[in-house]
Every structure is written in C-alpha cells, then in structure tokens.
C-alpha cells in the first residue's frame, strides 16, 4: 500500500510540476464551454434583413412591427426595386430579404434567404415565418372553422438553446481527452525516458503501475466534470434536473472506458508524439464528429451510424442528455450504462493482457 501511495504521489508531482499541462487540463473545459456557449453556437442571432420601403396595409404594418421588435432581427436596409435584392446580398447587407406585392390587400409575401449555409437559412426562414404567422393571428380574431393551427411545445428546452445539446457533448469530449490522451502519454513517456525499464525490473506489479497512473487522471477528470456542470448551470443556465449521483456514476464508468483506451494506446505507441497522434486521430475526431454532438446520429448514413455505435462518447452523451436535461430515471439509461460497462471491461482486459511484463 505504501508502495502504491508513493506511486500516486509521484504521478501527481509529474502533473503539478508541468505547468503547461496543468493549465491545459484545467483550462480546457472552461475554454471549451465558453467557446461553445458564446462563439460557436447553432442558434441563429443577429439576422440582417432588408424590407420593402413601404408597408401599406394593416397586416403588413403589424408584420413589420413584429420584425422590428424581435431581438433576433436587425433591419439593415430597404429595397426599392428587384435589382436591389441581388445588390444587398452581394454587399453582405442582408441575410434575408422580404418582398411583397403591395397592390393586394391580402398580400403574398416572399422570403428570400442567403442559403450559402443551408442550416442557417432554414432557421432564419423559420423564425421569419413564425413572426409573420403571429402577426396574422392577431389580425384574424376568429379562427375560421375547419382550420387547424398546431400548438407547438418545445419540451425540455423551451427556448431552443444549443447549450442543452453541447454541454453533454463537451463533457464527453473533455473526459475522453484527459483520460485517454493523458494516461497514454504519461505511460509512453516512461517508456521513452527509460524509466519503464527500471520499473519493470523492480518487483512492482504492472497492475499497480497502471492503477497509479489512472488515479490522478481520475481525480482531475472528476474535477473537470464538476467545473463543466457548474459552468453549465450558472453561466449558461442549463438546468440540472436529473440526479447528480447517477450523473457522477455514469461519468465514472465513462472515465474508466477512456482510461482503458489510453492504456491500450500506450501499449501500441512507442513515443509520446505517436501516442498523441493516435489519441487525437483515433479518439478525438470520431468523438467530435460521430458522437451526435454536432451532427445527429440519426441523420448519418447507415455505415457511419454503425461506426458510431462503438464510440463510447456517443453512449455517454446520450445518457447525460437523458439524465441531466430530461431528468429521466436511471432505468431509462440502462442500455447506455450496460454498453459502457461492457466496453470498459473489454478494453481493460485487452489492455492489461497486452501490457507486457518485458520489453518488446
């Protein structure tokens, strides 16, 4: 036991003495949260629109007022004739242009959007349509018989904030990065430095070498998880509706998966650079792209969806969404927990088997 404690001690010293790594480890979650929270957001704001010069009739004026009052839209100019439409798009003055036929009392409204970024364009049009609808609803006091107007409720995320989606994603990403990349690097560093040779000729059991590497990163990961949750709740106002205990437990299982992945990488890689590349390319990229954090898994082609099944981050992110945002009971994430547990035991067995008692 004393042996083990001094091992863990040593690992902590390695981490604390390397100021840059330390900063990276603790600064990264904060930076990522702020980046995703404020800079990289899938919400569309500050939409520049150009409107017709004249709004004559009642519903048109109300529509106009609707746009002017809406915080998501900025009216940046007016359009006199159809030639000017191309012009404002080219000059970047407008993301969206509203055109109407002023001659009729019940005017046809045309929305012209810059669809270079299709997702943004669709969202802009949807916002605009809603404003137009609302304006009309006020106008038509009595709903004509037979007309069905859907009553929409956005469950769990009534304001459609993207933070609800990316907070679980960032958790999955950061924990993966810290656990897998850092453990693999720290083991490979000992190989590179030659200290592994000395440890192997000592009576230390390989299992305790590995365990002692895991402990510090386990602690740091837990700290990071708490930082992310705190930032999410107090800075980005994402509610924590589910049980904190279950959230922690499932995170620890996920951390275990990542630690074993890191271990597996360390048995393959011979240099720190190789370890970094392998964890970067083989772990980070798929976790970023295929986990459902950015692109919904359901929209992927069948092959990629299949691939995403073996990505631990996918299951973890799904579970966190259910637990944290939806506030579901643990029974609803049984599948995710089971898959993660299975992955952890498989990876741990393989990597412990591969961790050699001797040099190659």
């Amino acid at each position: 036991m004393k042996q083990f404690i001094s091992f863990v001690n040593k690992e902590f010293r390695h981490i604390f003495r390397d100021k840059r790594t330390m900063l990276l480890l603790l600064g990264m979650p904060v930076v990522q949260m702020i980046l995703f929270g404020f800079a990289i957001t899938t919400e569309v704001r500050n939409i520049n629109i150009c409107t017709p010069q004249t709004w004559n009739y009642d519903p048109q004026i109300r529509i106009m007022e609707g746009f002017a009052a809406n915080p998501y839209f900025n009216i940046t100019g007016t359009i006199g004739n159809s030639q000017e439409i191309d012009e404002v798009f080219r000059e970047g003055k407008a993301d969206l242009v509203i055109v109407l036929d002023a001659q009729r009392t019940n005017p046809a409204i045309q929305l012209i959007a810059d669809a270079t970024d299709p997702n943004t364009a669709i969202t802009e049009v949807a916002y605009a349509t809603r404003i137009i609808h609302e304006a009309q609803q006020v106008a038509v006091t009595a709903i004509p018989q037979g007309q069905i107007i859907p009553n929409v409720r956005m469950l769990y995320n009534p304001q459609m904030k993207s933070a609800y989606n990316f907070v679980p994603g960032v958790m999955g990403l950061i924990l993966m990065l810290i656990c897998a990349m850092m453990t693999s690097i720290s083991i490979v560093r000992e190989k590179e430095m030659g200290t592994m040779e000395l440890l192997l000729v000592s009576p230390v059991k390989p299992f305790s070498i590995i365990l002692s590497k895991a402990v510090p990163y386990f602690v740091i990961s837990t700290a990071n998880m708490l930082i992310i949750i705190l930032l999410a709740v107090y800075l980005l106002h994402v509610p924590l509706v589910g049980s904190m205990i279950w959230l922690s437990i499932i995170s620890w299982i996920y951390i275990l998966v990542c630690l074993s992945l890191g271990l597996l990488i360390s048995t393959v890689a011979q240099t720190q650079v190789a370890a970094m590349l392998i964890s970067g390319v083989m772990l980070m990229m798929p976790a970023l792209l295929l986990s459902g954090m950015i692109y919904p898994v359901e929209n992927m082609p069948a092959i990629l969806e299949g691939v995403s099944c073996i990505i631990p981050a996918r299951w973890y992110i799904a579970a966190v969404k259910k637990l944290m945002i939806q506030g579901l009971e643990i029974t609803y994430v049984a599948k995710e927990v089971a898959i993660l547990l299975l992955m952890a035991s498989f990876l741990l067995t393989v990597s412990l088997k591969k961790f050699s008692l001797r040099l190659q």
Partner: protein
Amino acid sequence: MITVENLTKSYGEVEALKDISFHIDAGKIFGIIGPDGAGKTTLFRILTTLMMADSGQATVDGLDVVKDFARIRHCIGYMPGRFSLYQDLTVEENLHFYASVFNTSIKENYYLVQDIYKQIEPFKKRRAGDLSGGMKQKLALSCALIHRPKALMLDEPTTGVDPVSRKEFWSMLQRLKEQGITILVSTPYMDEATKCDHIALMQKGRLLSVDTPERIVAAYPDVLYAVTGDNNYRLLCKLKENKEVKMCYISGESLRVIFHKNNVPAIEGVEIRQVAPTIEDCFIQLMQ
C-alpha cells in the same frame, strides 16, 4: 552468482547474441567490453529479465531468468544505459520513490548508499534533470542500490561522463565490491577493462575472450613495437608498403607495429621500441 549458457537472441535477421556462455563469481567486478552494437544491452536485458532469449539459459543467484523472473527482480539492482530517473522529481524524491518501489525505505539501507549519496545530498532539493552528468550517475547508482541488491547490473554507466567522474565512479564500484556485491558492468572504453576482475571482450554478438585482464594481455601472441617519427601519417603509409611489416596502425602519438618473424628493420629518423600490448591491442588482434 551469474551463469550464462549458450544464450542466443536475434531481432529479425540481426543476431544480437550468438551462443554466449560465461559465469561470474560472487563478489567480483565483471566487465563486458565491446563497441556499440556488440550486444551488451541485449545481454543485460536478458539477465535483468526484461527480455527472453531465443535459446540458452541464464541464472542469477541460482534463479532462472525466465521461470523465476519475479524473484530475480527483488535481488538485482539495474542501471540502464540511458539516464533513467525522473527528471522532474528532485534528487530526494527519486531515491525515496525507488526505495518504496522495492518496499524499503531510505533509512533502512542508508548505510549502503551513504558513501555515494552524501556527495549529492547538498543538492537533494534539486530536480534530477538539472544535475551534472557525474551527479546524475551517482543518483542513479544510489537508486539502484537502495534495496540492497545482491547483484548490480550497470549498462554503460560511464558513457558520456567526464574522466574525473569516471574515475570516481570506478572507485565507488570498488568499495561496493568490498561490501560483497557482485557487479556486472559494460563499457565501450577499453581503458576501463583493467579496473575489472574479469572481463569479456565482445564484438558483434560473440565473445572474443573471457578472462582476467592480465591473462588476456599475457596471451597476446606477437611482439608489439611503438614506432614514432616526424610525420606519423607518412610513416604509416611507408610502413604499410614495407614487406617486413605484418600489421601496423595508429595508436595515440605513435604507431603500433608487428614485424614478421620479429625482424625489426632500422629506419632512419624513426624511434622503435618494444611496448606491452593494451587491452585495446588485444581486442584488435582478437577481431582478426
């Protein structure tokens, strides 16, 4: 203490060890002398149980290096070729760590490392990476000794270390030997051979000779002459064409020459005197 029988090891097509056999008596300093690529490190790795030989056997303190590897790991101290301590830990932390790895403490075995550790103790709060070459080496030796090993295996401990530190290092080994520790040490420097009780000359995975340095020198078959002139290079060219000369090469400030049938010709302006061969001369002779 250590026996090696018919050890062979290859990496792919490269044969690192070819049928190596020798034994080392307890309480002796045994030197493995050979250039880079001779197979010294491979031999050390097999004896320290880090690697398995393709064939052949080896024992350390009566324990088989394959079957009893766990027990051997308790009773040997190993210093790998490169400096293998934690550069970001302090001197004291390194020693403390290695003591705890072997389930012992600095206090318990302090008497053993005292001699060496005292010299670096003033810098015990300094990080190992900031030490000079000689001090690093002392720290590494202290760490290898802290669990009171029966046998010490030092792979090229003096490579890249300045002459003063090298000399100090060899006298430290002498004192450890007096405490009854068996020492296996390798070096590429021929001049260090005389510091060992027994030496094995090694080249390209083979042993050229295993004996005491004195007996290896005594077994030199030819009479060796030192030849000195004004311009050694021109002299060398001239001697190479001389039919009386069996072999000649540069050695420091003079040339070493072996004459056929020991017929020493008189050459003008050239000083010729008989000299005793060194281990280096023996190595060259054995290589041919």
